[in-house]
C-alpha cells in the first residue's frame, strides 16, 4: 500500500515578534494600525506544522507538501522570500486579511475552498496540518471547522509527534493535561492535525530550495484569489491590548532558582 500523502499545511501570518501592535476600528471591523508596515512571519505554530510536514514528506516518497495561506498578498510575498528557503512546498495563496480579527468560520470557508480547488487532490490521502494555537488568535477553532468542512472527522489537537506505520496507520502524540501525552492510532488518512510546537528546529536557509520554490510561489501569488471573508457575521464590542508593565535589567549568570524565586515573589506581590 502506498504511503504517499498530500500534506496540506494551513498557515496564517503573524507580526514579527516585538512589533508594537495598535488595534483600531475601521468600517469593516477592527484592524491593526499600520498593518502594511508591520513586518510579518509565518505564524510560529503553523511554521512548526510546516517543518513537520516536510520531515514527514521526506520519509514518505511521493508525498507532497502544500502551504495554504490567507494573508494580504504583499505580506505573503514578503514572508515567502524568507520562508521559501526553508523547506520545499507548493503555495496556495489567498489574498485576504490575516490580522487576527477574521471570523474562524469565514477563514475556514476560504481555506476549504482553496483546498478543494487543488488539482488532483485525493482527500483519502490527505493529512491536514495547521497550528493548534496561533500567535494572533486561537487557530484550533479554524482548523476544527476546516476539517469538518472537508469531511475530516479524525481530528487531533496539540500534537507533538506523528508517525506513519508501515500499514498506513497514523500514530499521534497529543498533549493532555498534567504534562502527559495521549497516544492515538488512526487507521488511515484523512486526519486533521493541529500542531503544538513539534519536535523539529527551524531548518537553515537553503538557496536551492528557495530557487525551486520560487518557480511556483510567484505564479501562485499572481493568481491568488481574493477572499470574501468580511467578518460580517462577527461583531467585536471592543479591542484593546493587555496592559503591559516593562521592567528590564541585565543579569548575567543568575541561577535559575534565583530567577524563579524572584518571579514567584513578584507574582505573589501582584
Amino acid at each position, binding site marked *: 500500500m502506498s504511503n504517499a500523502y498530500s500534506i496540506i499545511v494551513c498557515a496564517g501570518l503573524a507580526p514579527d515578534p516585538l512589533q508594537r501592535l495598535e488595534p483600531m476600528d475601521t468600517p469593516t471591523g477592527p484592524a491593526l494600525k499600520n498593518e502594511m508596515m508591520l513586518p510579518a512571519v509565518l505564524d510560529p505554530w503553523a511554521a512548526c506544522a510546516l517543518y513537520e510536514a516536510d520531515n514527514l514528506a521526506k520519509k514518505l516518497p511521493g508525498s507532497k507538501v502544500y502551504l495554504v495561506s490567507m494573508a494580504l498578498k504583499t505580506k505573503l510575498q*514578503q514572508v515567502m522570500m524568507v520562508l521559501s528557503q526553508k523547506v520545499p512546498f507548493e503555495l496556495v495563496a489567498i489574498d485576504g486579511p490575516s490580522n487576527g480579527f477574521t471570523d474562524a468560520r469565514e477563514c475556514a470557508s476560504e481555506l476549504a475552498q482553496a483546498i478543494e480547488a487543488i488539482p488532483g487532490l485525493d482527500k483519502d490521502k490527505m493529512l491536514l496540518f495547521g497550528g493548534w494555537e496561533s500567535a494572533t488568535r486561537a487557530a484550533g477553532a479554524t482548523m476544527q471547522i476546516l476539517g469538518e468542512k472537508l469531511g475530516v472527522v479524525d481530528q487531533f489537537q496539540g500534537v507533538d509527534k506523528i508517525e506513519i506505520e508501515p500499514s498506513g496507520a497514523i500514530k499521534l502524540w497529543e498533549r493532555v493535561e498534567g504534562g502527559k501525552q495521549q497516544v492515538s492510532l488512526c487507521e488511515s488518512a484523512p486526519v486533521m492535525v493541529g500542531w503544538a510546537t513539534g519536535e523539529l528546529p527551524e531548518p*537553515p536557509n537553503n*538557496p536551492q530550495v528557495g530557487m525551486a520554490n520560487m518557480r511556483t510561489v510567484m505564479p501562485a501569488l499572481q493568481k491568488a484569489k481574493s477572499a470574501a471573508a468580511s467578518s460580517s457575521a462577527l461583531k467585536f464590542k471592543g479591542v484593546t491590548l493587555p496592559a503591559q508593565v516593562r521592567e528590564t535589567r541585565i543579569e548575567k549568570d543568575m541561577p535559575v532558582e534565583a530567577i524563579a524565586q524572584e518571579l514567584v515573589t513578584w507574582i505573589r506581590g501582584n
Partner: protein
Amino acid sequence: MAQVERQKLEADIVCVGMGPATGGFLTTLTKEISEHQGESYLDSKVMPGMPLQVLCYERADDMGFGVSGVVSRARGIKQSFPDIDWSQIQMAAPVKGEKLAYLLDPIGASCRSGLFKFSDTLIRSLKAVLPYKDEALEMPFIPPFMEKHGGAVFSIGQFNQWVGMNLMSSGQVQIWPGMPVEKPLVENKKVKGVRLVNQGVEKSGAETEMFMPGMDIEAALTVVGDGPVGAVGQYLDEEFGMPQGHHKHEWAVGMKFVVQLRDDVDLEPGTVFHTFGYPEPEVFGFMYIYPGKVASLGIFIPSWFDNPVRTAYRYLQHWMMHPYIWKHVKGGTLKSWGAKSLQESGITGEPHLCGDGYARIGEGSGSTNVLTGSGVDEAWTTGTQLAEGVIELLKAGKPFTKENLEATYVAKRRASWVQEEGKVAEKSRNGFSYGVIPGLIGMSLAGFSKGLLNIPAKLVAPHKRYKSLEQYFAGKLSVQKIAEIREICKKANKTIHDEIMNACGWPEIPYDGTLLVTQQDALLIGGKVQAQGGFADHVEFIDTDICKGCGMQVCVEICSAQAIAPGEEGVPVFDREKCVHCGACLWNCSQELPQGHGVTNVKFGAGCGGLHSVEN
C-alpha cells in the same frame, strides 16, 4: 582539516546586499529585461532557454531591516521613477522646509572649546537681535550645497521594501534576505562568485547536527553593494588593496530614534532640521518629519571626535532633550531605534570600482558625498550606472572583465554628477582633523568655491587619533577622578562612559519608559533586535592578548547596542543576540595589528539578525 563538501549554484549575476545601490541596479536591469523579453542578449548563460538568472543575497532578516531615515534630493531615484508619488511610499514626503541651527549648551557639561563657550555667551547676550530661541541660533539660510529642496524625506527601510517588492513582483530577480555572504570566490585575481555563510553552527563556528556548509554561488558578475562594513567589500579591499592615495579613514556612526509626536505638534511633513554644536561640538544632528506626525531624529558621532568614551546612545538622548528639539518631541512615543556606520571618506575612500568578474556600487564604493550630506541617492545612481554598463556589455556580447566594466560602468560614473560633486567634496572635511571650527570653515570654503579651496590636512586612521581619557578630559576631570571612575567601573564590570558623563555634569536621563528608555529597552521596543540561532559570531577579537593590553576599549564604549561588554582580563565579550550590525566596532578598535596596513584587532564578518524594524 577535512575538505567540506559544498553545494554549488550557478547564476548569471549575483548581488551582495539589498540596499539603495543594489535597488538602483536591479530596478534598471529588470526594466530592461521586462521591456525586451525574449531578446537573445538577455538569455541566461547558465540556464539555456531561460532569461538572465539574477540573485541577490541580503544579510538582514528581511528587506528594509536595519537602515535609516534620510533627506535626499533624490535626483537619481526620480530618474528611475519619473512619476514617483512619495505618498505611495510609507513614511515619505517631499521636502517642505529646511532649517539649520547651532545648538548652545544649556547644561554646561559639554567639552566645548573656549571659542564655543565665548560664542554661546555672545549669542545669549545678543539674543534680542539674533534669530535665537530655545537655546539655539537658527541660521538665516542653508548653504546651497546642503539644500535638499525638490527632494524628499523618507525611511530607507520603507523605500527598500517598496523597491524590493516591485522587483520581486517583476519575477525577473530573486532577493533572499537572511542569507549573509561570507566572502567572494577569488581565483587568479578574478571574482567567480560568492560563498554564503555556514549554517547550523555554534557561536564559535563549531558544527552542530544541523550543519549546512555555505553554498558557493558562481556567477559571471558579482555586484558588491554590501555597504561600508560588508564582509565582501572588506575582503576585496584586502585582496586588491586600495588605489594609490585612497583610504577609508573617515567614518561616523549614525544613531536615531523614530518618534510618534504629540497630536498638537504642527510640524509639516517634509520639514528638515540640521543641527550642530550640541551635545558636543563635534556631534551633528538631524530631524525629519514624516506624514502622520512621525519624526526621524538622530545624531552622527564622527571618527574625528576624539573622546574615547564616545557613546552615541546617551549623547543622542541629551541631544533630543535640547530645548530646541525637545519642545517638539517631548510627550512623544518611541517607535523605533537603530544605528549604522557611515563611510565618510567619500571619493577618497573609493576602492577599485571593478575587476574581472566584479563591480562595486554604493556607499562601500565611496559614493557618499560628505559635503552635501547625501549618500542614498548617490548609491542608487551608481547602481543604475552599473546596470546600464552591464546592459551595454550584454548587448555587445562582451564578458565582465575589468577592462570592459571600466569602459562602461566606470566611464558612466566618471562622467556623472556623482563624480563631479564627489570631487568638490573630496577635501571638504579635512579641516575637521584640526577641530570643529577649522572643519566648518573648510566645508564652507569647499562648498562655496566648488572644491577649489579647502583646508589641507593629512588624514590619519581613527585608531591613530585617540587621546587617553586623561588627555581628552584635561581641565574637565582630574586624573585622580578618572582613576576613581576606572576603578568603580572595573569592579562593576561595566562601561565607563556613563560615569564619565555624570562626572562632567551631564544629568541622569529621566527614563519614562515611553520615549526616554534604557539602551536595552531601545533594542527591544525600538529596534526589535533579534538573532536566530545556527550562525557563528560575526564579531571576533583577533588577538585577545592585544585586548588584554588595550586599556581603552573604545569598541565597548561605542557599541551601539551594548553587544560588546567588558570581559575578564580586558577581553571584551560579544553578544550576538544584541548586535545591530552597525559595524562601529570595526573602525573604533584602537589597536592596530602588528602587520600594520591599518588592520585592527576587531574582525567584523557576515552575520544575520539585528534590527527587525522597518520604521527606520
